């Protein structure tokens, strides 16, 4: 009797355990039912408010090869993303799925307008888009930004995403923001969002898409008279993808307020206390000394909010000399270069702060420190940080230490 019972228990255990392997069978969905949208681009529409571009991942022809794999684009006009999605869905054999969406690309015109109502928290939740999806603002059209990636080469998509992060940490020449941080900045008003700035270098590569660019720009490229907008930050290059990310787009609330170049972006990253490494070239009389600097600790910000908001910011950096064409930078470090570099960096930071103040953008995030001086929410909200930010005076002091004393 006992043996039969134990056999019964064993059989029950086996059946129960094997059921755990069948969880996918409940309301099972075939794998090829979906097509995955990896990125959503927003341009101004001609007939409707937006021209929404869906970058869609294409699987390879077989499980083992990448042949046929890549990305395709569908652009649809609509007053909202949902409107456009409806049309995209009926024009595509698969159902569009957004669980792999990792970026939003906004054209500068869309970012300058009031688009927040159309990329709301509710929309993100209903489409199951991860809030970690990154934001990019493009000087130009989002559709052209995708085309510049050469979508027929699949790895470019993933590589470019990781390259933005590498560039951010290793060079600090761009800013990074995702939906979560963007919503936080816009809703709470403690800082204004700073987003990666995408650009298109029309001279970089002979892409199929670029063949239809106007002849005037091609002519000017041949003559070597490219404007800064057509090249990579004013530098002519050959090869690589036409699309690149450099500098940052600065917001005032939910609207694009302006842009910062790569050097100002490096300064901004240091001012915000971001954990990045930057290269700072310091011009001397007899050459250039280039420093590779990283933050030694978070900035020490002492804020006074009454009667007028003011901030004393001290920043500690540490690093090394990376390039020295003068030949004697190490010898001159303690007596001369250290002080000059610290003064130079403080001046550059103050200049970036003034630029941001003119744009009415608290991209540095002084509001974060201001909020910490209040005990209750009503007190903080009645202070009206955004209005008071215009009166803010900031004083920067920088200290730089080299990892190893160059004299030793």
């Amino acid at each position, binding site marked *: 009797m006992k043996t039969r019972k134990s056999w019964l228990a064993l059989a029950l255990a086996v059946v129960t355990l094997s059921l755990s392997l069948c969880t996918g069978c409940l309301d099972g969905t075939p794998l090829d039912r979906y097509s995955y949208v990896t990125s959503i681009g927003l341009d101004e529409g001609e007939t409707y408010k937006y021209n929404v571009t869906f970058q869609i991942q294409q699987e390879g022809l077989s499980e083992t090869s990448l042949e046929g794999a890549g990305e395709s684009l569908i652009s649809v006009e609509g007053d909202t993303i949902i409107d456009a999605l409806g049309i995209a869905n009926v024009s595509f054999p698969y159902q569009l799925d957004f669980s792999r969406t990792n970026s939003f690309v906004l054209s500068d015109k869309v970012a300058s307008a009031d688009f927040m109502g159309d990329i709301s928290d509710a929309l993100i939740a209903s489409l*199951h888009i*991860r*809030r970690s999806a990154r934001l990019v603002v493009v000087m130009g059209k989002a559709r052209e930004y995708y085309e510049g990636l050469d979508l027929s080469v699949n790895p470019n998509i993933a590589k470019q995403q990781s390259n933005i992060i590498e560039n951010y940490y290793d060079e600090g020449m761009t800013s990074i923001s995702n939906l979560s941080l963007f919503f936080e900045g816009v809703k*709470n008003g403690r800082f204004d969002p700073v987003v990666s700035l995408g650009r298109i270098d029309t001279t970089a590569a002979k892409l199929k898409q670029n063949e239809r660019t106007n002849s005037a720009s091609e002519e000017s490229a041949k003559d070597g008279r490219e404007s800064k907008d057509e090249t990579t930050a004013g530098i002519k290059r050959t090869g690589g993808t036409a699309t690149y990310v450099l500098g940052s787009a600065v917001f005032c609330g939910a609207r694009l307020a302006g842009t910062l170049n790569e050097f100002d972006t490096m300064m901004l990253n240091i001012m915000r206390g971001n954990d990045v490494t930057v290269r700072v070239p310091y011009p001397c009389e007899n050459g250039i000394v280039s420093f590779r600097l990283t933050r030694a600790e978070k900035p020490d910000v002492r804020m006074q909010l009454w009667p007028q908001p003011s901030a004393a910011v001290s920043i500690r950096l540490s690093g090394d000399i990376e390039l020295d064409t003068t030949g004697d930078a190490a010898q001159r470090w303690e007596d001369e270069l250290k002080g000059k570099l610290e003064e130079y960096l403080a001046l550059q930071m103050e200049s970036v702060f003034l630029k941001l103040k003119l744009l009415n953008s608290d991209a540095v995030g002084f509001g974060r*420190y201001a909020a910490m001086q209040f005990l209750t*929410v009503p007190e*903080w909200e009645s202070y009206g940080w955004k209005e008071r930010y215009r009166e803010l005076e900031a004083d920067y002091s920088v200290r730089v230490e080299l990892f190893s004393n160059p004299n030793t």
Partner: protein
Amino acid sequence: MNLMEGRFGKQENASLIGIAAVCGSIFTIEPQHMYEGGNSAFISMPLSVTLGLLLFLLTLGAMRTAKKDSVLALCDYSLGKGFGTLVTAIFALTLVLSAFMLMERFVNLLHTLIFVESEYANVAFYVAIVPAVAALMGLESIARLAKCFGVFIAIIMLIGFAFASSSFEAHRLYPLLGDGVMKTLENSARGAFASLPAFIAPLCVVGAAQGSKSLHVSGCAGGIAAIVFVLVTQLAVGLVFTYGELREMYAPLFNLNTVLISEDYYLRYDKAMVFVWLAAAIITSAYYIYITANIVTKRLRLFDARPCAASVSAFIACFIIAEHQNIYSIMQTATEFVRDYGALILAAPLIIAAIIGIIKKKLSERRQGFENA
């Protein structure tokens, strides 16, 4: 009477109380209400659990003084049979509601975040059947399950917080007092409902927990662990999201890693984490379902607790589905009511019963002393 109580030790009981208190305090709170005027939940929620622990100690002390072996007997002794039955009925109903709130939250979570394409009823069935089975197995099984999973759940959750720690920023916690001291205290008092059932439930089954002394030790251990864990969780959530975002979020813990700039694929464990939390919710729901069945069986002098456990489970499952389909909204109304007044409804009669019980016992001892003299 087949109550299926069994016997278990201090570790099992501490795990059971800890899991139930943490689960209630994290997953049954309403974000819109809790973070409405700011985030002071990292103060108010640990305080709520502390209030629950204090009530537990007071009631247990009264039970020991009055020499009563369960809170049901204490209520009968202090308030009389009629009021005692009423109080225990209210207690059983709040346990059902607590189990319903937890299970409904998890069915919604699974349906909106993971099994998006599945029928709601199927997901509800998937979630509801496990606590029902555990409750049918009896209290000892649930307690041993709690011991097995307790440390595991805690470690997994702490690992999750460690991954998210690079996005912690202190300014998000500010202003520290949210909407002010009074509002924080009010939230603490109201929020106590989330953890009170976890502390009152073991008082119904003192015998299974090896007596009041053992229960005292395990209750304190589980309670203190819950206070610490709720504090850590609320701090982690508060360091990642400001109150402006929290009041609009259905599941802040689920979004904990999305703030990270370089979100690697190994950090995308949030869907897996839902199942770890689900394990905690299942144990808590099973516990509450079983205790409800235990109370009903004792009160109605039935022979077996299992039919009642089965019917309570079915009742909860049916209402989860019915509420989703907007057939009924009675549970939703009741849930909103107990979120506001549940702590008062639960705590007030117990405090009164405990105080009367102590006074009554002291008076009777004094009277007996006089009579003997």
